[in-house]
């Protein structure tokens, strides 16, 4: 997943900070140096990094911070907030013209993924019951028109083209006319890739802009772009007044610092993220999720969404009650395990949990799905009575369970021991938290997390 490298790096830094009671100015400086390197390695533009560091430093070395109980946490919080802000606050939607058709102009360097993104955008609009028209204005690259035509055919969107002998400005004009006549409510103009320093081609783009009067001008940026991202974004923005950015190839292993840079210099929101060359709808970009992911605070929002959609709320509430009163049995354990598994592969879940990204690096932390299956087999080999009253599990019963589940007595013993520990912990936990506990949507999650940490394997 994108940004993972940066996450690890920052976690190391803040791991150091977290352990200290007080944070001196030196600590802040050291932490900021690491943050700076991490951001630079992630291809965030050095000017952007400089500003960012200055801002955070200014806020971190303040009286308030020093007096607060956990200064490390305060710094993390500041970095997180600044990072989210840098990435663009909340997500943005596609503009809509009062007078259809809404015109969207796609621009960018060669090979950024304009044509593919145009196809994805059209697919997204089709899904929302719009009637997009794709206009092929790339007359330069061999077979670019053909590419758009094939994409249009795949997703079932019309493509307007006048071949590669007409000027792109005329194509745009006629395309718009065509859309009006045929009742298309969105027009997506795919332009040729061009270098931002190519004056002739930039002039042509400006003319297309004048003719088409687009409601959205989207700059398509390759997430792998380095320091140059700033210059590209700046000059396209200067010529065209961008309204948004599409970040492509985010499924690579790039750290995607370009996202931060582009946002910082243009002030345009990153509206969409694109992954893969298969024509799927564009995904909305979630800056706040990305920011907390970078900081290793985990993608909790995504996890909560996932949990909400697949965990039965009533069951979760009941489970929580049982945990509090330490009535938790192997039956509940089994049920809960199934619920967690519904969320998806365990290691993917681990990725989303705070601090887990770092733990996964340690080789022995590998979560083995097979191990979970084995635990399940052990529990399933117990009789009803045994599940409800683990106390009655004597040696001969354990031996039977081991044979029944195809494991060894030692493994059965270990599981039972861990289960007991877990129950004890829960008892302590619940007496600490009182009967009410945290409210709302967190309930199910808390139950899940409480156990996630103590999975007996």
């Amino acid at each position, binding site marked *: 997943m994108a940004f993972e490298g940066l996450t690890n790096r920052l976690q190391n830094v803040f791991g150091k900070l977290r352990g200290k009671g007080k944070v001196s100015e030196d600590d802040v400086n050291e932490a900021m140096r690491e943050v700076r390197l991490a951001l630079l390695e992630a291809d965030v533009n050095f000017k952007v990094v400089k500003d960012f560091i200055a801002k955070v430093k200014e806020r971190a070395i303040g009286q308030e911070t020093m007096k607060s109980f956990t200064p490390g946490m305060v710094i993390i919080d500041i970095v997180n907030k600044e990072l989210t802000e840098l990435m663009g606050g909340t997500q943005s939607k596609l503009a809509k013209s009062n007078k259809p058709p809404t015109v969207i102009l796609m621009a960018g360097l060669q090979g950024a993924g304009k044509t593919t993104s145009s196809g994805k955008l059209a697919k997204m609009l089709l899904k929302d019951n719009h009637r997009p028209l794709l206009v092929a204005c790339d007359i330069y690259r061999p077979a670019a028109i053909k*590419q758009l035509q094939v994409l249009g055919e795949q997703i079932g969107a019309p493509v307007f083209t006048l071949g590669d002998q007409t000027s792109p400005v005329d194509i745009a004009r006629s395309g718009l006319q065509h859309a009006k006549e045929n009742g298309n409510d969105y027009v997506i103009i795919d332009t040729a890739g061009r270098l931002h320093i190519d004056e002739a081609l930039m002039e042509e783009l400006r003319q297309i802009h004048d003719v088409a009067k687009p409601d959205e001008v989207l700059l398509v940026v390759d997430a792998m772009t*380095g320091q140059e991202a700033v210059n590209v974004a700046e000059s396209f923005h200067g010529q065209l007044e961008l309204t948004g950015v599409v970040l492509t190839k985010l499924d690579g292993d790039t750290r995607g610092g370009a996202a931060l840079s582009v946002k910082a210099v243009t002030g345009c929101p990153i509206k969409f993220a694109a992954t893969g060359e298969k024509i799927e709808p564009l995904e909305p970009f979630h800056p706040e999720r990305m920011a907390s992911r970078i900081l290793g605070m985990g993608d909790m929002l995504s996890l909560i969404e996932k949990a909400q959609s697949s965990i039965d709320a009533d069951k979760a509430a009941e489970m929580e009650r049982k945990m509090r009163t330490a009535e938790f049995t192997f039956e509940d354990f089994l049920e809960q395990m199934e619920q967690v598994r519904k969320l998806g592969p365990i290691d993917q879940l681990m990725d989303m949990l705070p601090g887990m990204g770092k733990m996964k690096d340690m080789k022995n932390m590998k979560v083995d799905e097979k191990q979970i299956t084995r635990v399940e087999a052990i529990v399933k080999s117990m009789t009803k009575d045994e599940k409800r009253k683990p106390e009655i599990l004597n040696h001969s019963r354990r031996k039977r369970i081991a044979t029944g589940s195809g494991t060894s007595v030692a493994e059965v013993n270990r599981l039972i021991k861990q289960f007991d520990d877990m129950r004890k912990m829960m008892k302590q936990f619940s007496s600490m938290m009182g009967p009410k506990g945290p409210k709302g949507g967190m309930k199910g999650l808390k139950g899940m997390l409480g156990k996630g940490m103590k999975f007996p394997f």
Partner: protein
Amino acid sequence: MSFFKKLKESISQKTEAVTNKFKEGLTKTRTAFVEKVEELITRRKKIDEAFFEELEEILIGADVGVNTVMNLIDELRAEVKKRKIESAAELQPILSEKLVGLLKGEGDKQLRMADSGMTVILFVGVNGVGKTTTIGKLAHKFKSEGKKVMLAAGDTFRAGAVEQLEVWGQRVGVEVIKQGTGADPAAVMFDAVQAAKQRNVDVLLCDTAGRLQNKANLMEELNKIFRVIQREVPSAPHEVLLVLDATTGQNALSQAKLFGEKSGVTGLVLTKLDGTAKGGIVIAIRNELNLPVKFVGLGEKMDDLQEFDSEQFVHALFAGLIQSSEESEAAEE
């Protein structure tokens, strides 16, 4: 003789046309990178922490990898201490020398051609770096050298990719071996190798679909293509060229590493260098992975693909520096 003089002399033996092409193509790089260094050196007369920090920023701003920059700066610090250098101007030649050193390294920059019979060159890279365009330009180059060239349309995935290569085939006037979109690219390669053998082709250029280096399955597919070519022509592929977009940042290192593992990359092609203010990634890759850059794309025209020459590159990059150092030398004499 000073370092710059040596460099200049070795370059003067090369054709002026090529030098000019490098110079033109790298104008942006030169203004953004070198002039910044110069400006820094004239502005900050003394060498102190702030000087190093600014230098660091300029180098990182040119996409020279963070590790490479840190090492370079450390070395410079050591030099400054050892030679007791005080003024920034004295540091300038040392910096240039170090940069050239980083770029040069071992390894031949010439393309490895088959001793006898057919040469097979495989092109790999992520999406949108310019693989197909590079093949078109290279086909033109070989054709004009009088070689018989054939192209293999191995990008069976992206819409319009086969057509794109066909257009290049027509422009250059060479044959393109293809199958439909969605065909197994390894099968296309098999066909192409067989056809090329039968028709006594000198150079076979193999296109592949762009793929991100962290997609395990797609990388395995690439590995299969590599194996098929190797099985059919034991000494092939003679070159596996990773095509890199010059605007790419640090991720280029990951690309070079992972593509290297799966397809035995032997060299790099750096495209779109004319438009970027950078080129620094060349230094990072050279330094950290020891892969030679074989070609650079310096423009959109058919003959704008040039063999990479680190001396030319440095000369073009440091044209301003070289001039001023010559002046100072002349003054000394």
